[in-house]
């Protein structure tokens, strides 16, 4: 037993941290920002440990594998959680001072689910991890139930309900599909695969649909804008990136496994269709949005479309560049949501119109916003550009010319609405010239994202290499 427990040491450490947070809350009744600081410190410790200790190996019967692929994802999830917690500290302290520990504990439990996902090689473990990731998010989405920005409707209950109902439905799809697949293959091992038959096709499509919900890909995207608008913004910053990376991990673990990669003639076209639809719907529906969070919701749908092109390439490099893309997306989108959060606190709302004059009231927030927008739009010298480019390169090499051209054309449409936000913050006159003061933890989180986006944008080499290594490890060890 002890021979494989160390594979899960990082995951167990996070479980321990979550338990500690709840215990401390019950026994020591900590107030203020202490718990948040503790959680951040703990997660940073785990992140550092992921570089220091060796956690590679395979459990008996191969249900769980830990390698460079898993570590790549774990580090992404940990970064997202650290930044998400940093961004939430002040908001929680101000708006829900007595319910802080639950928030962090739920977030950490969701994180544990994510950490387990990329290493799962067994349907049961995969689904359990996926549900563990998803269920706490429903609760967190409703966290601002009694509290909104003045002048904006209370949408938290709706946000949470939409997330929950679609999430539950997606689980139902997944389970039904799995029942078919496991029944056909006679094994719960993902690598086992199944003889392709109409029934297996139905099963596989149902599973893809189930995971597609969490990714927010079209046609499973309806919850995205509503949930983003209603849930607390610092939580949405986390929700908009980490579960998407989780969904990508789960989809890749299934589709690229030895059992199913042979059926890529079957699933690759389905992924291509989903990706084109996501890019089209996301980019076009973002155009008329007036609320920054809804706009980012649709933009997120579009971004997922770009990732899926790389996955549809079904090659090692394609997979690697999907990882690169999602890493870029994590830092960019998290940072962007946190800036919107910081601005909305002082500017009286999340509407794009409310953002006017941001660059004058806080040049650094305005500048950060611009950099993140440019990164999402795919403009050179920020990381998002490389992400889009590599995805297009690999998809093109795999012969997916149509989605690449559609993607490039829609990227220009994307530029239009990203710039329209930039225009509002830089060119429109604001209502006041009062300075905006984002608190230290929030500013730190934004600064880290900004640094990652710019530094990796100038020199993406190392991240590309580690994404390549991750994909190679996964495909080599599957």
């Amino acid at each position, binding site marked *: 037993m002890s021979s494989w427990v160390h594979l899960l040491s990082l995951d167990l450490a996070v479980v321990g941290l979550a338990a500690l947070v709840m215990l401390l809350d019950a026994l020591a009744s900590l107030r203020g920002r202490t718990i948040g600081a503790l959680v951040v410190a703990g997660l940073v410790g785990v992140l550092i440990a992921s570089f220091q200790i060796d956690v590679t190996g395979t459990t008996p019967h191969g249900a769980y594998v830990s390698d460079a692929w898993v570590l790549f994802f774990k580090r992404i999830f940990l970064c997202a959680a650290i930044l998400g917690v940093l961004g939430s500290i002040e908001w929680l302290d101000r708006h829900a001072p007595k319910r802080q520990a639950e928030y962090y504990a739920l977030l950490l439990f969701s994180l544990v689910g994510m950490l387990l996902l990329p290493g799962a090689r067994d349907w049961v473990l995969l689904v359990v991890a996926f549900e563990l990731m998803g269920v706490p998010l429903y609760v967190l989405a409703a966290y601002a139930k009694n509290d909104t920005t003045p002048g904006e409707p209370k949408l938290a209950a709706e946000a949470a309900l939409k997330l929950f109902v679609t999430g539950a439905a997606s689980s139902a799809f997944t389970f039904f599909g799995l029942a078919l697949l496991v029944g056909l293959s006679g094994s719960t091992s993902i690598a086992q695969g199944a003889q392709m038959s109409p029934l297996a096709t139905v099963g596989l499509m149902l599973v893809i649909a189930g995971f597609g919900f969490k990714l927010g890909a079209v046609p499973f995207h309806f919850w995205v804008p509503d949930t983003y608008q209603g849930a607390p913004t610092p939580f949405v910053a986390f929700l908009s990136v980490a579960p998407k990376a989780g969904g990508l991990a789960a989809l890749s673990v299934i589709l690229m496994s030895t059992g199913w990669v042979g059926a890529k003639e079957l699933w690759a076209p389905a992924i291509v269709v989903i990706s084109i639809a996501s890019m089209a719907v996301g980019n076009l529906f973002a155009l008329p949005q007036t609320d920054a969070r809804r706009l980012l919701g649709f933009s997120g749908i579009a971004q997922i479309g770009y990732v899926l092109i790389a996955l549809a390439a079904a090659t090692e490099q394609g997979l690697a560049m999907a990882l690169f893309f999602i890493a870029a997306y994590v830092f960019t989108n998290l940072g962007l949501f946190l800036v919107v959060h910081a601005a909305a606190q002082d500017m009286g709302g999340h509407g794009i119109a409310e953002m006017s004059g941001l660059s004058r009231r806080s040049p650094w927030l305005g500048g950060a916003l611009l950099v993140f927008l440019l990164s999402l739009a795919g403009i050179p*010298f920020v990381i998002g550009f490389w992400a889009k480019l590599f995805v297009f390169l690999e998809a*093109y090499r795999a012969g997916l010319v149509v989605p690449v051209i559609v993607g490039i054309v829609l990227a220009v449409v994307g*530029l239009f609405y990203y*710039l*329209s936000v*930039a225009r509002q913050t*830089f060119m429109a006159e604001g209502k006041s010239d009062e300075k905006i003061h984002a608190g230290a933890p929030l500013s730190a989180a934004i600064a880290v994202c900004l640094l990652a986006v710019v530094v990796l944008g100038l020199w*993406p080499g190392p991240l590309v*290499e580690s994404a390549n290594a991750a994909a190679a490890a996964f495909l080599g060890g599957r």
Partner: protein
Amino acid sequence: MNHWLSLIVAAPAVAAALLLVLKNEQKLAIRLVSLVGATVSLVGSLVVAAQYDRALGGFQMLESFPLVPSYGIHLKLAVDGWGVALLLLTGIIIVTGVLASWSVPKRDKEFFLLLLVLVAGVFGVFVAQDLFVFFLFYEIAVLPMYLLIGIWGASHDVKAAGPFKYVWKRFAVGGKEYAAMKLTLMLLVGSAAVLVGMLILWNGSGARTFDMQVLENATFSRTAQMWAFPLFWLGFGSLAGVFPFHTWSPDGHASAPTAVSMLHAGVLMKLGAFGVMRIGMVLVPDAAEVWAPLVGTVAVINVLYGAFCAASQTDLKYIVAYSSVSHMGVVMLGAATLTPNGWNGAVYQMVAHGIMTGLFFALVGLVYERAHTRAIAKMGGFAHPMPAVAAFFTLACLSSLGLPGTAGFVAEFLVFVGAAQSEHWWWTIPGVLGAFVTAVYVLRACKSIFWGPAPKGEYAHLQDAQRTEWAAPLVLGSALVLFGFWPRFLLDSIDGASATFLSRVVTVASAPDMETNK
């Protein structure tokens, strides 16, 4: 190994970074930092022009740093004969541009910051030897324009048309924002086409590299070439104002603040033409030969259409903007001839037109700041209160119509000789006709603004150029004359590069048989 090239590219970027720590109130410091950054680049360009070994030719001063090794992307800089000329042009324009924007009215720090970032991108394009890095710098050069026009531009009546009506509805706040968005979107569609073209080359070479010298020696399948060339032509061409993708240019240039118009019409449009020649024609030579008749014919349309449009404008800035469309047609015409003279003329026209149009926009800006109008009907006799401005404006007009002794003449003459020597000799006729129409509209504009009886009323006490405002007219004006009388200074290096590149495109004896003006 020396690092002049990275210095040239880095100096504006470093200056921009320095600006970040300054406060908006430190107006003089902001300007001085910008000026120093720009001047270092200009000095660097002069040193490069002096050190470049014309006898040896080819690529010199190579610097390389691996950026993304697994995709074969290297930050590889080197300069060739064209690069020498265009670096010098950019250096001259940015220094005079910074001086011409000394009186920028608001948010000084951001203005100079964006201007410097933009020019760093321009320098980068001219020395990049990696297709990918080329594209990176190209985008850097194109994008700051959105904010530069949108924030500091001048609003005026712009008629929204076509698909841009939607944009207009969303942004019906001022003409400048419409113009900025139109410009950005059109150029970005162009970039998207270029990106697809790059993917075709990257995939087609099979070498997993973006190194332009490797790609030059790779042989691409005919199908790949036939697809790639039009993508590069229209993609880069949209920035060069190729008809019918030129419509961003008049609105954009007319709305932009002075220094931005100078830089955009003076240098940025050249990036487009440079891209068509350096990437489109040199990397996919077979397709270039097939497509050349269309490229040349469209260029001829550009020349004539631009000239006639300019002739019918009443707004001074629109006249200059349409004249740019017309003159860029001359560049593309020279490129399409696929002859040594045509190519030398095309590159020389880039330099000549860059300096001339920079001078135009600087002077138009001066006039506008004082008279607060750009409608030529309201002006007249401005030579009395502002003689120096009038003199330099007239000089620019003369170069524009191709008067011998100015840089414009050398360029246009070479292009027309090239056209006559090409397989499509008839291109010469509309080309020369365009030059004639140019003479009509520039002289008419010049006459009705500056000459005639002295103005009365509000225009009676217009000031002539003051302090830093002298820089642009003096430097650009003398450059126009210098390059007009001593074309060899640049032509020697340009010719070396043209001959090398052209030998890849067509198998002709590359010895130029016209030794004009040397």
